[in-house]
C-alpha cells in the first residue's frame, strides 16, 4: 500500500545502522523518557508549564537558553571527542579509524552547527537576556512575548537537529553545506534538509531577538542613561544586534533559495539553467562573516565589564571602545570574501578583501590595549572571571594574529582549507567567545540564582580549558602547515600521528574542564547556603544590575533608578546609597505569561519536519495553524497585569531581607 501521501518519504530504512549512531538513537529517546517520567513522578508538569514554558520573563528565558546551550555544549564536546579520537586512532592503528567516513562527516557537520548555533549563540542570548535589561535599568525587554517565541524557535531547532540522530541522519556537507555536494543531485537524503530547516528556524528566532534587543536598548533605558552612559556590554549588544538584523536576512534568503532548489528542483545554486554554486558560497559568507563578530562582540562587552570590576577601575578608553565596536560593525560587512580567496577571484578582489581584513584587526587590537590599560595600576582581584579573562587575552591574541596571517591572500593560498584554519577559528571562538561566556556565567550566576559558584573549582576548570585548548589546537597549526587538510578522516603519513594524538589528549583535557564546570555547579548547589549572596553585589560591581537584590526579583527594579553618569552604581556606593521611601513605590505593569510562543514554535517545528520528509499535508496544516495562532495573539489585548504599589513595597522588603 502506498502511504507516501501520509508519511512522505519517512521509512524504516532511515533508522541508523552503525553502532555509534544506534547508541545515540537509543540513548536519546531513553533520556527524554527519563525526563518525562521524572516530571510525572514528582508532579512537576504544572510547575513546568506555569513557571517556565509560558514565561515571558527575560531572566527565566535566559536561564532556559543557558540550560539548552550547556546540554548542547556537552553534545558538541562529545562530537569533538569522536572526531579527534578517530583521527588519533586512524594514525596509531594505520587503519580507517573508528567510524565510517559518512558518519565522520556527519559528526563534524553537527559539531560545527551545534557549537555555533546552539552553544555560542544560545549562551550569548542567555547572557543578554539575563544581564541586559538589569544593566540598563529596564523591567523587561521591549517585546517579552516575542522573546519567548524566539527562545522556543531556538529550542525547536535544537530538537530537530538532535532528532536527526534517531531518524534520517544529519547532513555530511560541512557546517555551511556548500553545493553542489548539498544539492539534490548529490545529497538526495533528508540529512541536508535537517541541516537547512534547523538553521532556518534557529536563524529566524535569532533575527526576532535581534529586533527585540535593539528596541529594548533604544527605548527602555533608565531615565538619564544616554547612549554614552551605557555600560560597554550594552553597547556591544546593540552593535551585535544591528549586525544580526543586517546579516541574518541574508542567511534566511540563501537557505530559502537552497530549499527551493532541493524541494522544487529549482536552479539557484546548481550549475544548470543559469544557476551558480559560487553565488551560494558568496552569500553564505556575506552572512557568515558578520556572524563571527555577532559571537565575539558580546564576549568583548562581557570582558570589558569584568576587567573593570575586577581591577576596581573605570574602563580605560570607553569612547575608543565604542568607536572600535562601531568600526567593527561597519567593516565586518566588507571582509567576507576572505573565506574563499582561493576560489578563483582575481588579484584586485583578493587584495581589497585582504586589506579590509587586516584593517578590521585594528579596532580589535584597540580593545586588547584598552583592557590591558584598565588592569594597569588597578587593584586586581584574581577571581574566576578574571582568570578566564587572563586566559582569554593570551589565547585570543594568538588567534587574532594567525587571522591576520591568513588575511594575506598569498599565505591563504598555502593554508586555505587546512587544519591551520581550523586551529585559527577555534583559537578565536574558544579562546574568545567560550572563555567569555564561561566567565560571564560565573560572574552573573549569583544575580540570577542568589548564590555564588565555587571559586576554586571554577579556577581549576579554567586551567583545564586553557591547557586543553593549547594541547588540542597548537598541534593543528603545525599539521596545517604540513599540509593536513581539514575534515580529514584518514591519512597515511606516520609523521602526523603524534600531533593527532596530542590533539586528542587536548580534547580530553577540555572535556575534563567541562566536567569540572558541571562539578562546580553541582557542588555550588550543594553548598548554596554558605555561598549565598546576601548583599546582591558580590563582586563590588559598577553597573545597575548589582543594585538589585540577589536573586533578581521578577520585576527587576522595584523603582527604576535614575542615572546621571557612567558606572552609576559604583558612584552611588561612594556617595552612600539612599534607601527608598514608601512613597517612591508606584504601581507597575508587567506582561502576562503566554503559551502561544511555545505553541507557534512547536508548529513551526512540525512545519520543518514536514518539509524535511516531504509530508505535504503536515506542512499545510501547521502553516494554517501558525497563521491562526499568530492572528489570535495579535488580537489579544489582555496581555498585561498590574502590581499595586503596596504589594510591590512588601515584595521588595521581603527580597531585601
Amino acid at each position, binding site marked *: 500500500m502506498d502511504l507516501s501521501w501520509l508519511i512522505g518519504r519517512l521509512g524504516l530504512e532511515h533508522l541508523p545502522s552503525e553502532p555509534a549512531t544506534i547508541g545515540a538513537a537509543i540513548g536519546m529517546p531513553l533520556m527524554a523518557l527519563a525526563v518525562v517520567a521524572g516530571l510525572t513522578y514528582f508532579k512537576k508538569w504544572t510547575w513546568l508549564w506555569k513557571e517556565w514554558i509560558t514565561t515571558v520573563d527575560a531572566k527565566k528565558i535566559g536561564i532556559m537558553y543557558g540550560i539548552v546551550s550547556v546540554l548542547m555544549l556537552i553534545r558538541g564536546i562529545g562530537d569533538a571527542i569522536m572526531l579527534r579520537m578517530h583521527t588519533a586512532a586512524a594514525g596509531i592503528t594505520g587503519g580507517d579509524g573508528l567510524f565510517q567516513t559518512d558518519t565522520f562527516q556527519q559528526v563534524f557537520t553537527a559539531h560545527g552547527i551545534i557549537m555555533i548555533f546552539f552553544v555560542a549563540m544560545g549562551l550569548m542570548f542567555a547572557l543578554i537576556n539575563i544581564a541586559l535589561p538589569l544593566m540598563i535599568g529596564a523591567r523587561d525587554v521591549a517585546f517579552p512575548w516575542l522573546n519567548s517565541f524566539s527562545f522556543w524557535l531556538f529550542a525547536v531547532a535544537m530538537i530537530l537537529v538532535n532528532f536527526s540522530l534517531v531518524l534520517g541522519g544529519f547532513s555530511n556537507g560541512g557546517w555551511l553545506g*556548500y553545493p553542489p555536494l548539498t544539492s539534490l543531485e548529490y545529497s538526495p537524503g533528508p540529512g541536508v534538509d535537517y541541516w537547512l530547516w534547523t538553521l532556518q528556524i534557529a536563524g529566524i528566532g535569532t533575527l526576532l531577538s535581534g529586533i527585540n534587543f535593539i528596541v529594548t536598548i*533604544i527605548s527602555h533605558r533608565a531615565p538619564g542613561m544616554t547612549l554614552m552612559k551605557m555600560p560597554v556590554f550594552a553597547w556591544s549588544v546593540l552593535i551585535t544586534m544591528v549586525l544580526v538584523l543586517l546579516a541574518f536576512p541574508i542567511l534566511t534568503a540563501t537557505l530559502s533559495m537552497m530549499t527551493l532548489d532541493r524541494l522544487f528542483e529549482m536552479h539557484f545554486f546548481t550549475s544548470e539553467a543559469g544557476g551558480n554554486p*559560487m553565488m551560494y*558560497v558568496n552569500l553564505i559568507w556575506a552572512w557568515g562573516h558578520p556572524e563571527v563578530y555577532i559571537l565575539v562582540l558580546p564576549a568583548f562587552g562581557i570582558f570589558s565589564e569584568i576587567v573593570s570590576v575586577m581591577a576596581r577601575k573605570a574602563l580605560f578608553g570607553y569612547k575608543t571602545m565604542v568607536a572600535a565596536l562601531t568600526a567593527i560593525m561597519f567593516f565586518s560587512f566588507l571582509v567576507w570574501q576572505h573565506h574563499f580567496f582561493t576560489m*578563483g577571484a*582575481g588579484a584586485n578582489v583578493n587584495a581589497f578583501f585582504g586589506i579590509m581584513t587586516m584593517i578590521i584587526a585594528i579596532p580589535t587590537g584597540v580593545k586588547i590595549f584598552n583592557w590591558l590599560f584598565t588592569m594597569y595600576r588597578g587593584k586586581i582581584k584574581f577571581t574566576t572571571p578574571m582568570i578566564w579573562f587572563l586566559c582569554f587575552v593570551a589565547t585570543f591574541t594568538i588567534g587574532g594574529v594567525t587571522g591576520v596571517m591568513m588575511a594575506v591572500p598569498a599565505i591563504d593560498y598555502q593554508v586555505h582549507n587546512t587544519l591551520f584554519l581550523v586551529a585559527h577559528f577555534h583559537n578565536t571562538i574558544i579562546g574568545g567567545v567560550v572563555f567569555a561566556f564561561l566567565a560571564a556565567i560565573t560572574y552573573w550566576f549569583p544575580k540570577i540564582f542568589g548564590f555564588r559558584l565555587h571559586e576554586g573549582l571554577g579556577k581549576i576548570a579554567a586551567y583545564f580549558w586553557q591547557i586543553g585548548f593549547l594541547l588540542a589546537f597548537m598541534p593543528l597549526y603545525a599539521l596545517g602547515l604540513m599540509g593536513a*587538510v581539514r*575534515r*580529514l578522516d584518514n591519512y597515511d603519513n606516520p609523521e602526523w600521528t603524534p600531533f593527532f594524538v596530542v590533539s586528542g589528549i587536548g580534547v580530553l583535557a577540555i572535556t575534563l574542564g567541562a566536567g569540572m564546570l558541571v562539578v562546580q555547579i553541582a557542588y555550588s548547589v550543594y553548598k548554596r547556603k554558605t555561598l549565598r549572596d546576601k548583599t546582591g553585589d558580590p563582586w563590588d560591581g559598577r553597573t545597575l544590575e548589582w543594585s538589585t537584590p540577589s536573586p533578581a526579583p521578577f520585576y527587576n527594579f522595584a523603582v527604576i533608578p535614575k542615572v546621571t553618569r557612567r558606572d552609576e552604581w559604583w558612584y552611588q556606593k561612594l556617595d552612600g546609597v539612599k534607601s527608598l521611601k514608601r512613597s517612591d513605590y508606584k504601581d507597575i505593569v508587567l506582561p502576562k505569561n503566554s503559551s502561544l510562543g511555545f505553541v507557534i514554535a512547536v508548529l513551526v517545528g512540525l512545519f520543518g519536519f514536514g518539509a524535511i520528509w516531504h509530508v505535504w499535508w503536515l506542512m499545510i496544516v501547521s502553516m494554517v495553524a501558525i497563521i491562526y495562532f499568530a492572528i489570535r495573539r495579535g488580537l489579544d489585548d489582555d496581555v498585561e497585569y498590574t502590581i499595586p504599589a503596596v504589594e510591590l513595597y512588601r515584595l521588595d522588603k521581603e527580597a531585601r531581607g
Partner: protein
Amino acid sequence: MKHKEYTKIRDRYIYGFFVSVVLTGLAYWFVVSDVFGVGIATAVAILLLALLQAVVQAWYFLHLDEESKPRWKTQSFVFTFIMVLIIVVGSLWVVMNMNYNMNMGPSDMRQYMIEQNKKGF
C-alpha cells in the same frame, strides 16, 4: 485625534497607495507592451521604477520625512541602504571576478566543484 489631522494622515496613505499602484502598473506595462523592446533597456527601466517605489514607500508609509530628532528611522534607513548596496555590489563584483583564475566553462566548473567538495572546503 482631531478630524482634520485624521483626514490628513488618511489621505497620505491613499496617495501613497495610488502612487505605488501606478508604479507597479507601469512596470507591468513596460514588459507587456515592449515599449523598450526585449533587453537591457527594459531591465534598467524596471530597476529604476523599483528604486522609485522604495522611496515612495519610505516616504508615504514609513513617514521618514516627518520624523523628529534624533531621527533613528532615517539613520537606520540610510545605514541599511549602504549595507545592502555593499552586499549587492560586492557580490556582483566577487562573483563576476570569480572566473579570473579559473576561466572554465560550466561543465568543467561543475567537475571542479565536485572535486573540491570531495576534498572538503
